[in-house]
């Protein structure tokens, strides 16, 4: 009974957060003197036709990866604000792989690309884990700084060694056919097989966290580091491991955008997937299965704001950031609202 009422409450608070956000958007449209039909058009192109839904699902996939990345660290009591940097290295590594072995058949190239993107993300994730475990430097500040460093480095590679000489913009050459994940289910939209991979990985993360002793130990250390130590867990080793795993999850974002859609790396391809991952994880209360759904929600938001920008005169797609912030605020103060109601 307890669990059931908790679920209902959870659903209610999510609905409330969405309602508040929607009201905010309507208010904004009104204030800016926009036509309200732009709202219904944007909604239609987010949920209610094949094309729109396809794009929404396309934006869902990377958020599942970054959401899981953030949530895994959260379970161990650690903050990974560095998914943004980790996913950049994942993307770059896929491009590098394609450049090194251009003629691999898809059957070999694709699994290799998935592994390489995870490994590259994992290596970048190793750094804050190492700094935390060995030097005691707080992971929040190191992951943020590492994001800036990753951005500079990856941009350098896009602009110099990997630059597409025939293109005017900052992007790499198109990868050979073996490295292209083909779109599925929704023709003319970029949603691709990596969505299925993302969902499978979410299930795997669930089993890992709640059905293995390693996962049990991570959750223990997240609740009480001392208790974990006394039960024989090495915090240093676990911190390193969880950051590597988190980084690997973030690195996999590349499979959706690079293998599945653009087939090349464009400067600034991520609209902040890493940061949105924080909101995704929070909304799902770090539950791996919940993350699939909250990713869909934030994926819709991403697509919706893009469409809104398209259908209105003066609203930029940054409106999604505002809604994101509002949802994080409402969710992080959820206990407060529930307490209020009891009194």
């Amino acid at each position: 009974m307890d669990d059931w009422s908790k679920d209902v409450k959870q659903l209610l608070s999510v609905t409330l957060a969405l309602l508040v956000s929607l009201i905010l958007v309507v208010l904004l449209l009104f204030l800016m003197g926009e036509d309200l039909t732009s709202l219904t058009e944007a909604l239609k192109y987010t949920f209610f036709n094949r094309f729109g839904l396809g794009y929404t699902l396309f934006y869902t996939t990377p958020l599942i990866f970054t959401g899981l990345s953030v949530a895994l660290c959260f379970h161990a009591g650690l903050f990974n604000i560095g998914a943004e940097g980790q996913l950049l290295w994942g993307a770059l590594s896929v491009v590098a792989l394609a450049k090194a072995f251009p003629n691999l058949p898809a059957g070999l190239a694709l699994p290799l690309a998935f592994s390489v993107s995870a490994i590259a993300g994992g290596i970048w994730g190793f750094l804050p884990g190492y700094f935390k475990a060995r030097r005691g430097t707080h992971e929040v500040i190191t992951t943020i700084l590492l994001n800036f460093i990753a951005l500079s480095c990856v941009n350098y590679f896009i602009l110099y060694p990997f630059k597409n000489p025939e293109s005017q913009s900052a992007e790499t050459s198109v990868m050979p056919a073996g490295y292209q994940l083909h779109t599925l289910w929704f023709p003319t939209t970029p949603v691709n097989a990596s969505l299925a991979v993302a969902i499978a990985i979410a299930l795997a993360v669930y089993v890992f966290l709640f059905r293995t002793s390693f996962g049990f130990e991570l959750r223990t250390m997240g609740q009480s580091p001392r208790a974990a130590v006394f039960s024989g867990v090495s915090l240093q080793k676990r911190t390193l491991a969880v950051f590597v795993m988190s980084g690997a999850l973030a690195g996999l974002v590349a499979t959706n955008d690079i293998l599945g859609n653009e087939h090349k790396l464009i400067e600034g391809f991520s609209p902040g997937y890493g940061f949105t991952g924080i909101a995704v994880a929070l909304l799902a209360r770090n539950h791996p299965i919940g993350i699939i759904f909250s990713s869909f929600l934030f994926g819709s938001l991403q697509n919706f704001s893009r469409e809104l920008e398209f259908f209105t005169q003066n609203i930029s797609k940054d409106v999604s950031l505002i809604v994101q912030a509002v949802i994080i605020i409402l969710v992080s103060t959820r206990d407060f609202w529930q307490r209020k109601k009891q009194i």
Partner: protein
Amino acid sequence: MIELIQSSLRLSTPLVFAALGGLLCERAGVATICLEGVLLISAFTAATVDVFTSSPLTSILVGMIAGSAFMGLHALLTQKAKADHIISGVAINILAAGLPPLLSQAWFGSSTNTPSVPSNARLSEPAIIAAALILPLAMHYLIYRTSFGLRLRSAGDGPEALQTSGISVGRVRTLALLLGGALTSLGGSYLSIGHSSQFLRDMTAGSGFIALAAIIFGKWRPIPVFLASLFFGFTEALPMILQGVTWRGLSLPVQWIQAIPYVLTLGILVTTVGSARPPRAIGSK
């Protein structure tokens, strides 16, 4: 050389304000990764007000109000609603990243920048820099020699003791955040209408986080934090100097140069500050 010192000072100024403003909040026991957002929103507000009023003084004041309001939101979320300090800070940073482009698009038709203001509507750089140089002494006095400072330090190091002696911890922290927000906003306003003549999207480029690193590096004490900010300002000035330098006909790619301040900051944090002791109750609800 003179040029290097000058640009170091210029680039240190926003860091000094943000680091000392953030110091106030952190000493009161509130983790402030939202410094970045406060810098950004105050920079945008000051620039926007300046476009309409051409009065730098009004602009800086409104900028301070905006920055304080964002810190006030942080106070509301962490102290009243008991939200996690880091999560609240992340939300505020996202909000502060999203609002300027949205409003700028609506008001000026461009989501990437506000219109440039004429030079007579800009802040006097020497005056602001001078203020930044005096600030650490004032902060030292405030924190160590006043009853507000005593309560502030208690809120960070022993909030239970403060509460039982009849002072509301939430109120002390809120006050510290509002004041810290106002100080940080001086840095933000300086960025847009002192150092530059307009607001550019994401123009703070992580200054708030570097200020946070300066707080940690300075071990949460005003004078060392000030010196750390000067040092980090210097690392930010380095790229400008290095930009033109060529060696045997090769020049360093601009992307590598841009990474220098972050790499240095990270390197310093990781190698030197393992054992710094933050305020005992930082992040407590």
